[in-house]
C-alpha cells in the first residue's frame, strides 16, 4: 500500500517536471509554434487557443486531469487527438518491445546460468566475452547489419516499413517486426546476461547452496531447487530497468526500420516542435517506466516470501 502511494507521488512529481520542462524553460511556446516571423495577432490567437493566457497552475491542472482521464490534448499542428494516435502507434511499438523483452530473457537466462556454472572454463569465458561485445554494439547498427544480411542479401524479410493495413495482415506485420525485435532483443539480452551471470555466481558461493550440496544433491539439482529462485531477485530488478531501456531503444530501432510506432511519432513531433504531443508522449513513457518499477516490487514479493512476511520497505 505504501509502495502504491509512493508510485502516485512519483507520478505526480514526474508530471510537474514534464510540464515544467516544456512550458517554463523555453520562454514562449506560442512563439516556438508560430515561428520567428509571426505577427502579434497570430501569437495572441495561439496563446488563447492553447490556454497559455491562463495562469500556469490552471494550465497544469487542466492538462493533468485530462491526462489522468486518458486525454492528452490535441496536436498543435493538425488538431488530432494525441491519445487516439498514441493508441494506434502502440499496436506497433508494444509488440516490438514485448517481443524484444521475451527474446532478451530467452537468451540471457540460459546463457547467463551457463556462463556462471562454467565460470573460469573456456565456455564461460567465451559467453562472457561475447556478451561484452553485445553490450557495446549499438542496436541501431545491429539493425542495419541484420537488414543488410537478411533483407538485402538473402531477401527473407523486409528491411523497412509496416503493412499499411497493420495487423489485418498478420503475416506481413510479424515479418516486419522480426528484424527490429532481434536487433533490440540481442543487444538488451547481452546486458541482461551479465546480470544473470553475476547473480547466479553469487548464489553458487552461498552457504545455503553448500548445505544443499552437503545433503547429497548434485550441483544442478541444488541450483534448480534453491539457487535459481534466489538468483531471480536481482535479475527481475534489472529486467524492469531493461524494459525502460527497451522502450527508448524502440525509438531508434523504429527509425532504422521506418516502423510507424510511438518512437517514429515522437521523433517527428520533436522535429515539428509539436510540444503538446511531445509532452503527452514523454509523460506516457515516464509513467510506463514508473509503473514497471512498481510491478518489479510486486514481483519481488511474489518471488521472495521473506519480503511478504516483513513490512514493506523494511527489508531490502
Amino acid at each position, binding site marked *: 500500500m505504501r509502495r502504491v502511494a509512493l508510485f502516485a*507521488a*512519483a507520478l505526480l*512529481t*514526474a508530471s510537474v*517536471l514534464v510540464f515544467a*520542462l*516544456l512550458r517554463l*524553460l*523555453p520562454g514562449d511556446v506560442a512563439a*516556438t509554434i508560430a515561428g520567428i516571423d509571426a505577427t502579434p495577432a497570430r501569437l495572441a490567437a495561439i496563446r488563447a487557443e492553447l490556454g497559455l493566457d491562463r495562469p500556469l497552475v490552471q494550465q497544469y491542472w487542466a492538462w493533468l486531469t485530462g491526462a489522468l482521464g486518458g486525454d492528452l490534448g490535441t496536436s498543435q499542428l493538425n488538431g488530432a487527438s494525441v491519445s487516439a494516435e498514441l493508441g494506434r502507434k502502440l499496436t506497433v511499438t508494444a509488440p516490438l518491445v514485448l517481443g524484444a523483452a521475451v527474446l532478451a530473457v530467452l537468451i540471457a537466462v540460459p546463457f547467463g546460468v551457463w556462463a556462471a556454472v562454467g565460470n573460469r572454463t573456456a565456455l564461460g569465458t567465451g559467453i562472457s566475452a561475447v556478451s*561484452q*561485445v553485445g*553490450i*557495446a*554494439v*549499438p542496436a*541501431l*547498427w545491429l539493425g*542495419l*547489419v541484420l*537488414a*543488410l544480411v537478411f533483407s*538485402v542479401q538473402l531477401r527473407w524479410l523486409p528491411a523497412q516499413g509496416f503493412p499499411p493495413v497493420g495487423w489485418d495482415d498478420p503475416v506481413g506485420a510479424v515479418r516486419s517486426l522480426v528484424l527490429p525485435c532481434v536487433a533490440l532483443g540481442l543487444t538488451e539480452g547481452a546486458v541482461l546476461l551479465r546480470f544473470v551471470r553475476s547473480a547466479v555466481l553469487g548464489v553458487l558461493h552461498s552457504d545455503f547452496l553448500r548445505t544443499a550440496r552437503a545433503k547429497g544433491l548434485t550441483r544442478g539439482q541444488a541450483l534448480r531447487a534453491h539457487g535459481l529462485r534466489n538468483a531471480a531477485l536481482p535479475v527481475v530488478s534489472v529486467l524492469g530497468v531493461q524494459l*525502460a*531501456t527497451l*522502450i*527508448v531503444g524502440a*525509438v*531508434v530501432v523504429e*527509425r*532504422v526500420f521506418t516502423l510507424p510506432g510511438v518512437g517514429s511519432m*515522437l*521523433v517527428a*513531433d*520533436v*522535429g515539428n*516542435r509539436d*510540444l503538446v504531443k*511531445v509532452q503527452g508522449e*514523454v509523460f506516457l*513513457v*515516464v509513467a510506463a*517506466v*514508473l509503473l514497471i*518499477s512498481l510491478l518489479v516490487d510486486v514481483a519481488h514479493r511474489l518471488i521472495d516470501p521473506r519480503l511478504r512476511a516483513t513490512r514493506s520497505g523494511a527489508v531490502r
Partner: protein
Amino acid sequence: MTVLLSVLRRPAGAFGLIWIGLLAVAAIVSTFWTPFDPLRTDPGKAWLLPFTDGHVLGTDRIGHDQFSQLLVGARETMVVAVCAALVAAVVGLLLGLLAALGPGWVSGPAVGLIDVLIAFPTLLLAMVLAAVYGSSLGTVVVAIGTGFGVAVARVARAEIASVRGSDYVLAARVGGAGTARIIRRHVLPNIAPTLIVQLSLVMALAVLVEAALTYLGYGSSPSSPSWGGMLHEQQAHIAARPLLVIWPGLAVALTVLAFNLLGDALREATDPRLAR
C-alpha cells in the same frame, strides 16, 4: 600510477586504455589535420573503394573521404563523452551529497527527486531538450550528463552514507571537524574510486546515446560529421556499399567496449575485494 599500471597489465584493460588513447589522439589531430577535407564533395571521386587514391576507407556517394569523417566524428564523440561525464560527476556528487548528508528537509526531497528523475530515459530527455532549445552539442551534453548523473547520484548517495557511518568520520567529528572538512578530507577521497568507475561506464553509455542522437539528427549540426550521422547518411545506400555502414558502427562498438572494459579493469584494480 599503480592503478594505471595494474589496468595495463590486464589485456582487457590495456585494450580499453590504448583504444581510448588512440581516439583522444585522433580527436586532437583532426582539429588541425585530416587526410582530406571531410566536408569536401567531389563527384569525380564518388564510391571509391578502400585504399584507392589515398582514401583509406574509400569515399561515399558524393566523394566524402570516410576516414577523415571518422576522425572528425571521433572528436565529437570524445567531446560529448568527456563533457557529459563531467556534468554527470557534478550532478551526481551534488545530488548524492544533498541526499546523504543534507538535513532532513533537504535529503528527503533529494532522494525523491533522484527516484523520479531516474525514470526519465536519457535519450528522451535529450530529445525533449532538442525540441525546446534546438539541437546543439551543448544540449546533447547537458541531457546525457544530467540523465546519467542521476544514476551516479544514486550510487554516490549509498557510498557517502556508508562513509558517514564509519568510525573515522565519527572520530573526525569528535575532533571538531565541520561538515565541509569531513566532505573534503574523508568523503571525497573514499568515494573517488567508485565514482571514477561509474564515470567510465557513463562515458560508454554517452557514446551509445550520442550515436543514437546524431543518427536521429539531433547532433551538433547536420554539416559536421558524426558517427551516428554517417550511419544515417549511408543507410540509404546500404545495398550498394555495405562497407560504408560498417565503419562508423564498428567505431561506436569498439569505443563503447573500450570504455566498459576500462571501467571493469579500474574496478578490479581499485577494489581490494575483487583482487585475486
